[in-house]
């Protein structure tokens, strides 16, 4: 948490955009947009209907809106969150409730090298092919979903759900 922390108290209600170059703790209600350079803490009891943007986002309150963090989003015990999360790291504690899409960048579900011999050797090739076919996906970590869909073994057809999603784009 930042040193000179701004706190929006539990009796305060804000409609509009809230920006902070430092950290911010919200105990009240915000409707609109929240953009914080450092750590944003949504305390238990806070009610937020806003898109949220921060470096570190710690949530123990209720949030409806999209959440973007450059570092980490943590949903603590009492968190009630509906909306998409985009962050390289996400933690959801026992007791938190969440519904939405989570995007952390490319997820490598290829088989780990070593133990499982046969199939493992094919993976780098399959991946290389997939990346060559879709160069944007290889580079752009924040590209939603597309980035990860092509990563599959060449000899394994994508499951039906993956094909559907790929087509939709």
């Amino acid at each position, binding site marked *: 948490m930042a040193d000179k922390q701004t706190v929006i108290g539990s009796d305060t209600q804000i409609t509009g955009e809230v920006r902070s170059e430092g950290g911010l703790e919200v105990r009240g209600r915000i409707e609109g947009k929240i953009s914080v350079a450092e750590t944003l803490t949504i305390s238990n009891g806070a009610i937020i209907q*806003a898109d949220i943007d921060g470096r570190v986002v710690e949530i123990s309150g209720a949030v*409806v809106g999209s959440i973007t963090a450059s570092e980490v989003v943590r949903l603590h015990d009492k968190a009630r969150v509906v*909306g998409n999360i985009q962050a390289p*790291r996400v933690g959801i504690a026992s007791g938190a409730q969440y*519904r939405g899409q989570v995007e952390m960048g490319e997820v490598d579900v290829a088989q780990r090298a070593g133990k*499982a011999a046969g199939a493992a050797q094919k993976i780098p090739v399959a991946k290389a092919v997939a990346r060559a076919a879709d160069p944007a996906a290889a580079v752009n970590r924040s590209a939603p979903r597309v980035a990860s869909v092509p990563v599959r073994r060449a000899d*394994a057809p994508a499951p039906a759900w993956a094909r559907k999603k790929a087509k939709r784009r």
Partner: protein
Amino acid sequence: MAANKEACRIGSTITISGNISGDQDLIVEGRIEGRVGLDSRLIVEEIGNVEAQVEATEVEIKGAVKGDIAAGKLATLQSTARVLGNVRANKIIVIEGAMVSGSIEMDVELPPELAGAKPGKA
């Protein structure tokens, strides 16, 4: 590993392609392709690799899963988990470090003030 019946283990060199069903806890260190439907617990170890639709009472992921996961009670994604697919469960725990691409769906009891609120229309 708490289990009433002894858990059964799929070793690291084993690949099963097809449909796995049953009511015995299953620990996967190898590879599964297809579909898993268990009235018990599925544990995917760090070296395990599952490319399947998964349904189980409880699911604990330490390795890689590509496919949708549905758990009756609890789904836990440990810090080493890599999941490409949607996760639905009564309760879902994600340990920081886990990589997820897909939706995470639990029932959310929003306070009345947010009852009608829709994300994206904030």
